[in-house]
Structure formats: C-alpha cells, structure tokens
C-alpha cells in the first residue's frame, strides 16, 4: 500500500490559488471554509516563497489524539479522515493541528463551530465510496476513481505533488539536485517526523 503525502515545492509555486479554487469547486466546499490555502512568506521581499497548505495527513495525527469522540481514522493509504456523524464540533483538533487544517462552519448554537471540515485527500469519508451521502458530507472521492487529489493534479507548475510519499520525495529530490537549490519539503518534519534529504 502506498503512503499518500503532499509535497509543495515552494520554489515552483507561483501563488496562482488554482489549487484553492479547484478544491472548493470539486468538493463544493461551503462559504467560509477553505480546505486548502496558499501562504506567502516574505511577501514582497527578496526570497519570497509561497506554500500551498492543507491537511498533511500526519503520521500519528495530533487531531486524532485529542478528539474527544474518536472520530478520526487513518485509511490503508495513510490518509487521515474523519466521521462527521460522530464529530461534535468541539474544536480540539484545530487546537492541536500544526497546519491549521480543520475548518468549521459557524452553524452551531451561538453561531459557533459546526461539524469539522478538512481536506480528505479527495477520498471522501466513511460512507460507501462515491455515494451521494459521501459527496454531500465530504465531497468527491477521486481516490476511489483511481485519481489523485485535484489540487495537485491540476497544478500548472507541478509545484504541488500528491501521491506515494517515497515517489514524490524522489521527484522533489531530483528537482533539487538538477536545479541546485530547494527550500525544503514544507511541513514534512512536523507531519511525518522526517524530511526529504538531498
């Protein structure tokens, strides 16, 4: 089985926000929720870099460690998913997440958090694959269709890579060796406890 990961090559990201838009469209993500976002570091300064960030599907996910109702589970592909029927919208996963991935619609009492929503690595939830119920709650299940996440698939500069961790790490390593520089695999050490060494 593959161990699915994301890798954003910040030296290629042109901050076009297409991954953000594609994600919202593919999953019909509601207003106010962004499963993926692009953060620009050193904006307007020399050495500016943009990084596309979403749920990194961590090894030993901290969100799962703090969830009071144990609604998280990790698939055979290493994707961290959650069950919205069990989620109570307490917000603990967002306190624990190093990447700011969990998002909440403001639908609960006092206009506070509803059920958590986050990147599913385009692989839905616990409902039957590609069912309507799954689509309504979690969006499209591209992995079940044999496709990779749309954000990475349509990235125009191939900055955002998705797929088996070993394969995308190798692609990134080759790039860094060929062009002679690289700002690193953003978030890897935090998410997976290891980074891509060149």
């Amino acid at each position, binding site marked *: 089985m593959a161990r699915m990961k994301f890798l954003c090559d*910040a*030296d290629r990201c042109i901050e076009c926000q297409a991954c*953000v838009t594609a994600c919202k469209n593919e999953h019909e993500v509601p207003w*106010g929720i*962004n499963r993926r*976002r*692009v*953060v*620009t*570091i*050193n*904006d307007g300064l*020399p*050495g500016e*870099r*943009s*990084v596309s*960030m979403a749920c990194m599907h961590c090894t030993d996910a*901290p*969100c799962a*460690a*703090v*969830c*009071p*109702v*144990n*609604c998280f589970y990790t698939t055979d592909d290493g994707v961290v998913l959650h*069950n919205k*029927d*069990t*989620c*109570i*919208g*307490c*917000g*603990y996963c*967002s*306190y*624990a*997440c*190093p*990447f*700011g991935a969990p998002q909440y619609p*403001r639908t609960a*009492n*006092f206009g*506070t*958090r509803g059920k958590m929503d986050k990147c599913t690595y385009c692989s839905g939830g616990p409902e039957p694959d590609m069912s309507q119920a799954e689509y309504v709650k979690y969006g499209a299940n591209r992995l079940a269709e044999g496709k990779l996440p749309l954000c990475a698939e349509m990235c125009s500069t191939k900055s955002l890579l998705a797929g088996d961790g070993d394969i995308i790490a190798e692609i990134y390593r080759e790039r860094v060796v060929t*062009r*002679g*520089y*690289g*700002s*690193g*695999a*953003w*978030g890897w*050490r*935090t998410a997976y406890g290891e*980074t891509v060494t060149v």
Partner: protein
Amino acid sequence: MTSISRLLTAFGLALMLSFAGPAAQAQVNPTGSSVTEDALFEALGSGGMVSGRATIPDPEAGMLIKPENKDWAVLQGSTLQTLSIVAVLGMLALLAVFYLLRGRIRIEAGPSGRTILRFNWIERFAHWTLAATFIVLALTGLNLIIGRTIVMPLIGENAFGTLSAWGKIAHNFLAWPFMVALAMIVILWIVHNIPNRLDWEWLKLGGGLFKKGVHPPAKKFNAGQKIIFWSVVLGGAALSWTGVMLMFPGNLAGPAEWQFYQTIHALVAAGLSAIVIAHIYIGSVGMEGAFDAMGSGEVDENWAKEHHALWVEEVKPKALERGGPKVTTPAE
C-alpha cells in the same frame, strides 16, 4: 499633450525598461536568498511558527506551520486525561477511607425535633440551580476528557457521538444558568464567608471532623464551608471566564489562546469536581442532619448547636420573636 510627445514618452519608457529589466532581475536572485523551512525554524527557536500572508479573509489562514501545537495534543490527550481521572477517583477513594474510619457523623445529642430555618427559598433556589447545572456541566465535561476511553467502548461510536453532541449543547447552554446562580450565591453569602480568627481555631481542630465530641464554634458558615464557598466562587469564575472564551473561539487570537483557555478550564474543572464530590458527601451520607439545610431549609436545633453554635445564638432570639421554633413532633 500631442500625439508625438505621447509617442516619445512611450518610447522613452520602453528604452528605460529594456535597460532596467536585467538589472532588476539581477538584484532579486530567487536562488540566492531562498528561505528554507529548516533555517526558518532554527531562526524562530522553540515555540516558533512559520506564517505569512494569505488571500483568504481569515486572519488565522496566514499561519503555515506551528509544530508546538502537537505539544498541546500530548497534554490534552494524556496528561489532562490522567489528572482528571486521578482527581475524581482519588477523591472518591479518600472519602471511602474517611467513611470507613469515621462513619456517618451523627447528631451527638440526637435530633431535638425542633427546627430552625437555615436557608430560605431563594438561597436554596440559587444553590440547587448551581448544583444541578454544575453536575451536568461536570459530567458532560468529563465525558469530553475520558468518555472515549470509558463510555465509547460500552455504547458504540454512533450512540456515543450523539450523546456527546447533546452533551456539548447542554454544556454550552447550561453554562449560563450556572453563571447566574454563581452570581446569586456570591451576593447572598459573601458576607458570611469573609475569613476571620474563628476560622483559624476551627481549622486547628480539624473542624471536629476527625474526632467525636469536638465541635469548634462557628457562625453561619464554618471554615470548611468557607473553603467550599471560595473554591466554588473562584473556580466557578475561572471556569466561566475560560468557558466563555472557548465558546466564542472566533474572538481569540488562535491556537495558542485556545490551548491556554482549554488547559486552565480542564485543570480547574478537575480540581473543583473533586472538591464538590467531597461537598456532596458531607452534605448527604457523610453527616446526619446536614441535608435538611438545603432540603427543607430547616435544620434540627441540636445539629445547629453542634456545628454552628454562634449562628444559633444569633438567630434564635429573632426566631423566638417570630413565634418560637417550630415543633415538628408533637410533645406527648
């Protein structure tokens, strides 16, 4: 401006750009000052986070990576869980030992049959509103900490999810009557709970809790009750403040503040739950005659004389003026 001068300006601009272009590129070398994640974290030190600008109208979206958040996951996922279990089970164990050694504290002179009004209806209303909401808040809160290890295996994920969702709603809504009742007991009882020299005497004698026949004098509230009062008031205020902060997370600055308020909330809740368990014990099975104070509001005169001698001296003359103490058993 004539068309010729416009043309000249355009030409001049184009000329300038053709010279300035390569120079500008040479100044900003994308490879020369490439930020690397490793270097950034090294510069930030521990507790640092990488953040930048995002186009999303959400101030938190600019936070890119904050590894420190994982520390809170360990604190919440294991440390606070252990502390909560130890606080609650530890207090229950202590009380069990106390009960085995001391037994039920009886009215030594026996019930007199005459009663004195100890708490009027408004005091009882405030107390029971506070008590009922606290119990629901404590149980639903405890459920968030230890429910998934204790309750979930028993009833399954679906039922536990539904239960916890209702628990969250109950927790959010009952927090408000709790706060109102807390304010009520402060107003009603704060005058009787100001510490004085008498309390020191009471504490030195252990409140007579551990020895039969020892009854240090006390006014309306003895030092033990004052400790309960101040624990509930200060702990309740801390819980209310942190709880309201957690209820409106959008008003806070992000994960660091949420983590801070959640940790304080959980620690105070564990401590106060343990204290309240002791309070429930001594107010019910632990002491004969104590429950009546909050039940009917009328306590037996002998109970009152033993535990609140100075208070009886204060109130008895007034009660006599109003027609004497009520006799609940006929004098045969």
